[in-house]
């Protein structure tokens, strides 16, 4: 009988107890995996934001408009490589409850500036630029409504009114955008600013925000200051920041999500640690006499330590690995239904690695005291203790 089968036999000597512990560890890691993926997706905007991409918004607040003329003025600033602009449309499909992320953008430049996030073929780009009512739809959004290239879809706006008095704009889907990485959210739609601006009834010739890249991240600070100084004391002052800082500030507005998630995972783990730790200690104590017998047979101290620790680590792995598998499946299932709040939900490699480290740590922490006690046990007292 080798050590592994000895460990296995020891672990399952009381099947009910082993099963219960495995189940509780399983839940702890399922919670860990799902919440980890949740946090990851939540902060994705910040991680994916390119270091040299800057966002220019109205200084009062980013919901206030900027004049369209700023686009050309910023384009001529030294050190600016690409510039584009976008406007929030407040979109929905069919019913205001079906909230949809829709931007009105300057087609040519916008597609170029976000090419690290989504892929479009040159033909698709051309179609987007030439078709006045053309719209590019992200893969996830197209899948949600079963849209294909060539479909005409009426998109409602909860902010703007059309020239014809209605609140819907007809758009023609000219391309489905593919993400460059699974973490990129493709629940969005973008259409031509020119079409939007001509047909809306108010706020004409204004834009929501300007996106730009510089020739090198090193000059970001200087370019930001130049832009803000250029529009200082005008009716539309600007605030320029990196995309990363902008996204971070926006997420911070939702409240301290990371802290809440951390507390919950922490509480789940403390619970499990106590349950498993106590049970491990108890199951080793029950076996005092057996350990005495192993020692009598000549098992060295190190091997006893290894056997007991091996048992607790095996236990956490048996619970933890399926837990992570379930987290993977759960995020897959939840992905589309909560994409509105947290897009791109997925358990990433670093979450798996962290989980694995935690499983080993949990196994060692819960096993170490009983293991050391077992190792130090004197044969005479072990066999004497009935």
């Amino acid at each position, binding site marked *: 009988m080798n050590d592994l089968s000895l460990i296995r036999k020891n672990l399952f000597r009381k099947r009910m*107890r082993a099963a219960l512990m495995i189940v509780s560890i399983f839940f702890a890691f399922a919670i860990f995996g799902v919440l980890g993926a949740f946090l990851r997706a939540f902060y994705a905007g910040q991680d994916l934001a390119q270091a040299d991409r800057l966002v220019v918004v109205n200084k*009062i*607040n980013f*919901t206030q408009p900027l004049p369209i003329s700023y686009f050309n003025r910023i384009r001529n600033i030294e050190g600016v490589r690409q510039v584009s602009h976008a406007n929030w449309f407040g979109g929905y499909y069919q019913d*205001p409850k079906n909230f949809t992320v829709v931007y009105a953008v300057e087609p040519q430049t916008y597609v170029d500036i976000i090419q690290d996030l989504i892929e479009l073929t040159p033909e698709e780009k051309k179609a987007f630029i030439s078709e006045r009512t053309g719209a590019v739809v992200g893969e996830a959004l197209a899948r949600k409504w079963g849209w294909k290239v060539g479909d005409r879809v009426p998109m*409602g706006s*909860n902010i703007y009114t059309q020239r014809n008095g209605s*609140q819907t704009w007809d758009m023609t889907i000219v391309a489905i955008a593919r993400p460059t990485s699974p973490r990129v959210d493709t629940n969005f739609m973008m259409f031509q600013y020119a079409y939007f601006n001509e047909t809306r009834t108010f706020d004409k010739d204004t834009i929501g925000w300007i996106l730009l890249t510089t020739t090198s991240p090193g000059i970001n600070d200087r370019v930001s200051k130049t832009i803000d100084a250029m529009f200082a004391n005008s009716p539309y002052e600007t605030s320029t920041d990196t995309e990363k800082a902008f996204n971070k*500030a926006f997420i911070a507005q939702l409240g301290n999500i990371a802290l809440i998630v951390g507390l919950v995972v922490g509480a*789940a783990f403390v619970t499990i640690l106590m349950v498993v730790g106590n049970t491990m200690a108890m199951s080793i104590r029950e076996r005092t006499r057996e350990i005495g017998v192993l020692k009598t047979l000549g098992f060295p101290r190190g091997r006893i330590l290894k056997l007991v620790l091996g048992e607790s680590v095996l236990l956490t792995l048996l619970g933890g690995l399926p837990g992570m598998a379930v987290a993977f499946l759960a995020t897959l299932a939840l992905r589309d239904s909560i994409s509105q709040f947290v897009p791109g939900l997925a358990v990433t490699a670093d979450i798996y690695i962290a989980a694995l480290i935690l499983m080993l740590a949990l196994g060692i922490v819960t096993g170490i005291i009983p293991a050391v006690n077992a190792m130090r046990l004197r044969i005479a007292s072990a066999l004497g203790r009935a």
Partner: protein
Amino acid sequence: MPPILLQTAAVTKINVKSIPQRFWLSLSTVVAVALVVMVLLAFLAMANGFQRTIAGSGSDEIAIVLRAGSQAEINSGITREQVRLIEEAPGVARSAEGRPLVSAELYLVVDGVKRATQTKANLPLRGIGPEGAALRKGISIVQGRMFTPGTNEIVVGKSLLKEFEGFELGQTASFATTRWTVVGVFEAGGSVFESEIWGDLPVIQSLFNRNNVFQTARVRLTSPAALAQLKQYVENDPRLKLDAKSEVEYFADQASQTTDLIQKLGWPLAIAMAFGALAGALNTMYSSVASRATEIATLRAIGFGGFPAFIGTLAESLVLAAIGGAVGAIATWLIFDGITASTLGGSFTQVVFSFQLSPELVAQGVVLALIVGLIGGLFPAFRAARLPIIAGLQGIG
């Protein structure tokens, strides 16, 4: 008292009294259950606090008129002509001088700095006319005075002042190129209005280049029933592509999404964690039965039935779970109740709210704890009831 009850009472007493013998194991069950209840109650208290702040803001005697389909004030927009038509609508209450009690308002978002994180946050700046404050219930100025019409003066809500920097009485806040002096702080019964900044409507319209633009109109109705008349009037006039709803209805819609999300997160988490605690409880109770095997067998040998042993074990488990539930509820109350937090509300601006624990929520937490105790005690109790007497007496639990 029938013997079975006497026996049950005696065994239950023995069980509960012997809990200290298994102190650490019992403690771990209590703590595990307490943590589960705490997580659940913290989420529910958050949802409850948010819900009460928003839903508590509305009155059914006030109607709010928005552009059709806009859902939130921030998205809405109405013209001066539409405001005039609303002033003539049936069901609109009038002042003693015969003026219609209608307040057309401008709702803008400006940046503020959150004290806790030192990050920028969206704050609502509301331009109100002379009727504005009177159309909200329970408004009172607690510091300073109301703004003077026609000046760059603002008053701020109490909650906003607490959470965000730079709005102390007498300070100057600058939004873009204009400067505003804070001349007063108001209270609004803990409602969402306490998270707002108010200024004079015409001044804000002109300084923000929004002349003749309004976001919404608030209307005092002659009675809650007059809402139907107003709705019909709005529907029948083609110039009014607007939605009229009662303030209560409007705020209930605003609160529902966020509250739903918090609750949808809280319950599954608590249930998943409850399984962990359940494993702990079962474990504790099985070992309790094992350690008392001799005792149970002895009782059985002197004539006690299996049923008292069953109830005794179940009672022990329920007592542990109830203690855990109570500890969890008290801890949540001490740690979380009354904590203020702020998040983005339906109109894309910060809503300041506080965690609120209520007796109904505590009851839900305790019920969850008792379910864990019940299931955790049930199977070990069966084992206690069926324990073979001979084996028990020999100590082979």
